[in-house]
């Protein structure tokens, strides 16, 4: 067992252990914070695998953006900060059985398929220079399409979360009926 394998095994144990805590803890905020630990350990794993640019993107996007977004979601849905007993649904034993079966099948397939394979880790393969050249030479069209997709999804998120956009004509009529009341109220306030 080489040093790389030891480090990667430790990081993998941390990642999987904190992932298990994410799905079993009784506190919502703790779940989000354990998610940070899991993603951080995975970023360390990417570093061991010499994919350094992916590791830093993982830290930036996942730990920096997505977990913060999830914490905002927890805050805005007024979730209880302390322990809540009803975070698990009634079918958790069925879920555990399905997950155990998935794990058994996947681990068996992977070990039988790639148990003897080894890979040589050489520095530089996943550097920002190599990946940048690859993105902007070979994969530039998917990159541009993906940027449009990201823009569209964020516009969609804004449209979904704004409360003053009316969807249908009848609701628009209702909102116009409501407008004079607001105007009157404002006038009274002004007077």
């Amino acid at each position, binding site marked *: 067992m080489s040093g790389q*394998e030891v480090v*990667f*095994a430790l990081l*993998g144990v941390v*990642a*999987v252990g904190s*992932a*298990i805590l*994410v*799905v079993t803890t009784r506190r*919502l905020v703790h779940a989000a914070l354990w998610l940070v630990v*899991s993603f951080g350990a*995975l970023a360390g*794993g990417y570093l061991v*695998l010499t*994919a350094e*640019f*992916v590791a830093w993107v993982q830290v930036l*996007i*996942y730990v920096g*953006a*997505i977990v913060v*977004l*999830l914490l*905002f*979601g927890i805050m*805005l*849905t007024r*979730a209880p900060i302390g322990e809540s007993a*009803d*975070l*698990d*649904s009634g079918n*958790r034993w069925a*879920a555990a059985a399905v*997950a*155990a079966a*998935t*794990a058994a099948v*996947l*681990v068996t397939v*992977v070990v039988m398929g790639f148990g003897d394979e080894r*890979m*040589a880790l050489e520095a530089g393969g*996943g550097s920002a220079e190599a*990946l940048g050249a*690859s*993105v902007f030479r070979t*994969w530039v069209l998917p*990159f541009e399409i*993906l940027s449009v*997709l990201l823009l569209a*999804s964020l516009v*969609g*998120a804004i449209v979904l*979360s704004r*409360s003053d956009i009316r*969807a*249908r004509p009848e*609701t628009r009529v209702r909102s116009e009926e409501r407008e004079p009341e607001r105007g009157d109220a404002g006038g009274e306030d002004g007077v």
Partner: protein
Amino acid sequence: MHLAYPTVVAALLFSVGVYGVLARRNAILVLMSVELMLNAVNLNLVTFDIWLRDPLHGGQVLTLFTIVIAAAEIGLGLAIVLLVFRNRRNVDVDRLRALSERADGPDEAGPDEDGEQPAEPGRAAPAEEARP
């Protein structure tokens, strides 16, 4: 380095995510579990990219694309969850039964405070028209 280490870690992460999606009730925790599964896929992509020594770096570039799609997904997913919370006052996926075929479904999921919960469940989706 053995290829089995990262792939086994990815498989375990994926099954933990499967458990979370199936067992959790809070919609935000379900989204977190989806993120765990996406991370397992990312780890697999990076591993096979390194193993195959892809000169185009297809696996790592696809990992970056997956991260972007995960960001888009979590943004849209949280917007939908917040919309559901504004309409229903909870984000409990077990109680969102408005689309169920059983007759008792919408009653169980109906909001308590606004009386004009529509008869057909499809109308429940637009946000603000049910609010007073």
